[in-house]
């Protein structure tokens, strides 16, 4: 059988479409349906019927305002911290590492060889009473004898920063590495000193990496619940933790679904605004 050339691209797209349809579109539709259900009167736990109760959304949001707010604050903090750590790192790898470039890149992704959960649990140890950080900070009188670091917002944000750092570093590195060194030289040639060159040439040219890196960090961080569950306390619960407990502990599917949709919509709106503002469509 001869396949027309025009049809080849569609055939190549088919497996991807089929996969996404089955495992993304269908579950999303199912989730949307669940989000407006209410419990069957006199039924068992976990028995729900469709009543188009859009009030589920309002209730879900009003009851969990705090956790929503916390999710976005923590995710924003983790993103800013990751950017602050990753930019100099990516810059050094791209421009100053010479023959060590590949080794450093492997080191950046090396944490992925261990499980995400395990690494987060390790942070509990690092920040715990037996770790070296707490005693050191105490002996330097930066924190008081009573202060602990585990089960705090600090620990959650630190864990998220650490866990998402490679997602920030790699796109930053990719866009810095792509900068033609001659444009940096041209800037110096045109009377810009090192700092001005960095501000006027290097940073603008690395913006695609900054945008990609912040999105890859912020989006999963906003929906994350592992860090808050392992490193946090009831006071640091994020929206991910609420969704998790609604599904698996309370078996309140409609609220969990409504929360999931609200989170998705909120992230979508924020990301759209951010991309508009960063103006990626103008970047090359």
């Amino acid at each position: 059988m001869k396949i027309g050339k025009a049809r080849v691209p569609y055939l190549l797209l088919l497996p991807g479409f089929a996969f996404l349809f089955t495992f993304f579109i269908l579950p999303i539709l199912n989730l949307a349906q669940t989000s407006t259900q209410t419990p069957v009167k006199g039924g068992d736990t976990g028995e729900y019927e469709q009543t188009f109760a859009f009030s589920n959304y309002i209730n879900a949001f009003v009851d969990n305002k705090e956790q929503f707010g916390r999710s976005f604050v923590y995710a924003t903090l983790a993103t800013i911290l990751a950017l602050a750590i990753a930019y100099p790192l990516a810059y050094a790898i791209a421009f100053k590492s010479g023959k060590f470039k590949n080794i450093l890149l492997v080191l950046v992704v090396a944490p992925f060889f261990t499980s995400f959960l395990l690494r987060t649990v390790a942070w509990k140890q690092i920040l715990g009473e037996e770790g070296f950080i707490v005693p050191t900070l105490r002996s330097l009188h930066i924190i008081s004898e009573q202060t602990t670091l585990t089960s705090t917002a600090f620990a959650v944000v630190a864990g998220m920063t650490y866990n998402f750092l490679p997602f920030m570093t790699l796109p930053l590195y990719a866009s810095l590495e792509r900068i033609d060194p001659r444009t940096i030289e041209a800037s110096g040639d045109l009377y810009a000193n090192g700092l001005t060159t960095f501000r006027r040439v290097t940073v603008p040219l690395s913006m695609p990496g900054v945008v990609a890196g912040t999105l890859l960090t912020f989006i999963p961080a906003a929906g994350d619940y592992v860090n808050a569950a392992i490193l946090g306390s009831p006071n640091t619960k994020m929206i991910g933790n609420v969704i998790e407990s609604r599904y698996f502990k309370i078996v309140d599917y409609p609220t969990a679904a409504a929360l999931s949709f609200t989170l998705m919509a909120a992230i979508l709106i924020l990301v759209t605004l951010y991309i508009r503002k960063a103006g990626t469509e103008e970047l090359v």
Partner: protein
Amino acid sequence: MSNDAISARGDLRLTRITKSYGDFNAVDDLTLTIPKGSFFALLGPSGCGKTTTLRMVAGLEEPTVGSIHLGDTDITTTRPYQRPINTVFQNYALFPHLTIFENIAFGLRRRGIKDVKEQVDKVLSLVELPHLAGRKPTQLSGGQQQRIALARAIVNRPALLLLDEPLGALDLKLRRQMQIELKWIQREVGLTFVHVTHDQEEAMTMADTIAVMNEGRIEQMGSPADLYDDPETAFVANFLGQSNLIKGKIEGNDGDNLVIDLFGQKISMPKKRSHAVDNSMYAGIRPEKFRISRTGTPTRGNTLTGGHIEDVSYIGVSTQYVVAMPWGQELMVFEQNDDGVAPFDKGDEVVISWEPTFTFGLRGDEDIEAGTEVNPEEPAEE
């Protein structure tokens, strides 16, 4: 010192510059003066040190030994952004995130110049692209980007404009056109241009003075006509155009001329055109200076007999012959097709002759292949 440097003007003087990378000297004890207001070309093959020299002048590399002066100001270690020198980079290095207007305004803004808009508009009309001010560099053709790169540099009215293989990325036709334009713009703005190229035709078309570089040193410096008519080394003779170099022996003097034995045949040439240091020498003649005639017909000037046509290539305006000589050497002869005489055929017995004043003499210990293995169309050096 930095404030002095930015306003320095005058001739560029490189004094005993050496640039080493490990044991390798990219530039080797180079001394050179480039007069203010000239169009100067550094010509040489890949790896001859011309780009390294340019980068040291721009401040992108520091010489290992030696000093660089602009007028009376020592700029050897001055930072690039403190030098009154701008560069048109190979592949242009335009800022992809800025509009054409902002690319050109970049240098003016860094120096806090007031009438940015006026100056940018002026230089955009000079390069005849005022309608492109709002575009991004990627939206421009290669030739347009080249002109913008030039505009971005000359808008600053630097004491010195450096051009690093600026036309290397353009196709042949556009290159020829830009050569004429660059020359015109240089006269128009009256700046000193230092042009680095591996294309001898480009250097000869544009420059007032050419320095031919080889292995980190200057082989010879002079006007294009001087270099072509009286090359001092085999490298220059071969790198600028083509040359026939025939092994000879200086037999004696005849007034202002030398008498030379070329494989048993006597010729003469002006004394002052010989760069030989002893009796052993090479006589050099450009292929178009030879005349070719059938054996037995009268000739004038220097004459070499006993040749026969080995190969004929008809190329319209001229015919190129390869003539095999009795001592085994093949000589290249270009004949204009302007006399209505039928070309010679392969195997014809011929005599070649030329005016003695066209002969140049090289040292007898030269490598006569020097400069021939270089392909002038090869991509620019990195």
